[in-house]
């Protein structure tokens, strides 16, 4: 693996002529690259293909020994029976509500704070930015017990509010991303708007929101993923099965049904994976660019 990794990566834009003597090794290295990537891709996809296979198996075939890789017949009813066992669609609605509200909250709050921290000049700005970006590295475990007690005391335990509230206060990492983007926007834009009498709120809503579309879409996607995937917070804050999110419901589905009903489980699991997958294929560019913008953080 290391040998082919060390091969020179041909870059976009470097269309220099290759000496004849180098062409044959280049073809070999390219073939080796395809073989390696292909093998890795198959390995990566295998667990997912296997999930699909399990999800399609009948009750009899699921416990057959030795296990088959391809199902003999497609038991599509698993996609009805499975979800019914955990009230899947109710949990889906719960998860959608929590996810959509907290995503909207995270987007709005992070973009607003990001604007303030990068485009309004006021004393203490640097300090606050240092505190906000430093807090990215503060281990979240510190809030585990105190916040649960706080929500118990406020009577908010076993509601969705503890899952939604944090997003309204701007997530440090999103504020950081937003600031990076705001700083790339030329100053003269707000200066001319200021001369025309526009206040910061007007500049933010009328000028910046349209200009920063890529970053707030990135924030929306990341925040959607955080909320959709979150397991520990719902585990601590929710007790009634009626309020469960899918992460919680799916985890308890597994511990209740240990063993034999994996075809139901995997069919349901595929439905659980579907919304983020659909979102990913619709907005693939933003998923990858968003992480990329984390990668270009160099200050």
């Amino acid at each position, binding site marked *: 693996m290391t040998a*082919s990794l060390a091969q*020179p*990566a041909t*870059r*976009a834009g*470097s269309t220099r002529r290759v000496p004849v003597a180098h062409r044959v090794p280049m073809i070999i290295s390219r073939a080796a*690259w395809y073989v*390696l*990537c292909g093998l*890795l*891709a198959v390995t990566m*996809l*295998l*667990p*997912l293909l*296997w*999930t699909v296979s399990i999800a399609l198996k009948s009750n009899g075939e699921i416990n057959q020994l030795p296990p088959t890789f391809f199902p003999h017949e497609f038991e599509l009813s698993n996609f009805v029976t499975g979800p019914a066992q955990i009230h899947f669609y109710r949990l889906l609605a719960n998860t959608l509500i929590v996810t959509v509200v907290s995503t909207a909250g995270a987007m709005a709050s992070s973009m*607003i*704070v990001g604007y*303030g921290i990068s485009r*309004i*000049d*006021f004393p203490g700005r640097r300090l606050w930015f240092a505190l*906000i970006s430093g807090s*990215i590295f503060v*281990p979240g*475990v*510190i*809030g*585990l*017990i*105190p*916040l*649960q007690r706080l929500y118990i005391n406020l009577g908010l335990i076993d509601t969705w509010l503890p899952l939604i509230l*944090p997003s309204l*206060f701007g997530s440090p990492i999103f*504020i950081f991303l937003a600031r990076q983007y705001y700083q790339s926007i030329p100053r003269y834009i707000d*200066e001319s708007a200021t*001369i025309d009498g526009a*206040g*910061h709120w007007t500049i933010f809503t009328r000028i910046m929101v349209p200009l920063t579309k890529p970053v707030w879409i990135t924030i929306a996607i990341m925040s959607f*993923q955080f909320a*959709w995937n979150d397991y520990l917070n719902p585990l601590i804050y929710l007790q009634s099965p009626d309020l469960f999110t*899918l*992460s919680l419901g*799916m*985890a308890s589905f597994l511990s209740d049904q240990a063993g034999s009903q994996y075809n139901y489980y995997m069919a349901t*699991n595929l439905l*659980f*994976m579907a919304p*983020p997958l659909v979102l*990913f294929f619709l907005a693939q560019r933003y998923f*990858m660019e968003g*992480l*990329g*913008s*984390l*990668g*270009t953080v*160099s200050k």
Partner: protein
Amino acid sequence: MSRTLTAPPVDPMTPEPATTVRRRRRLLRRDTIVGYLFIAPAIFGLVLFIGYPMITSLYHSFTEWNGLTPPQWIGLENYVFMFTQDPKFWPSLRVTLLWVVISVPVTLAAGLALAVLVDRSTRGVKIFRTIFYLPVVLPAVAVLTLWKYIYEPTYGLANQVLRFLHLPTSLWLGDARVALPAILIVGVWSVGGTMMIFLAGLQAVPAEVHEAATVDGAGAINRFFRITLPMIGPIMMLQLMLGLNGAFQTFNQVAILTKGGPGTSTNLLMYKIYNDGFADFLSSPQLGYATAEVWVLFVIVMIVTIAMQRLTRRRIYQGEGG
């Protein structure tokens, strides 16, 4: 650059020094108020989600507290019990450190290797990038429950593949020596996020630098260690710190895959804290003791994070100087 906003360009034809100064001050004061209004959510957030928990939990770590009756001050007793009597604490700390020391470098190396692999413009590279990234998109619980069945000894995919290759099978999560590496494999499977971050860093390295080095006769390995690594140093540092932070607080994997077992082989500190703090709603939770454990974990993470930051920063500067 930032100062220009409060001082709009004054028309040089009508010099009014006194009013300009006053106007500038008024603008500055207005900007201060507006600025703080804009960042107010984050300030409240810092106070509510970091300041408040830090202060209250530091106090609670010195108390005995079951969550029903008010906390009783017991001084250092929680910490003394933790370090000298709790039979599960040292094994848990040991396995946590082991997990961090192994999983963080492996994950970073795998992510970087994949990034280097797909950092080219060959036809089809985008498909491979998408496939390698795909597991990251899936919900953590969906991935973990899927892997739990993959590791199932009789019907699971892992042993199915091993049998197909005529290799000895394993009990996977049921074997105390294999359980932790098995959890790590799940992490490596979803390393696509790390890959994408590194890829962005690699693509920011100008192609000319590589070409110049190639012309000067630098081999591929040499170029990787002398050019690529130093240039992505800051990203490496960020990834390292986020990776350490995450690894110390690993919870989902253990909670879903192994429940800390077999024995104490995967009883990571975060999972132990959860169990001591709230797992048993029926018996009284030991909130004071769990909070003391939180503080031990918190201090370790902060020390390691700061130390890594110092260390890597120095190394990067040396790289630039040399």
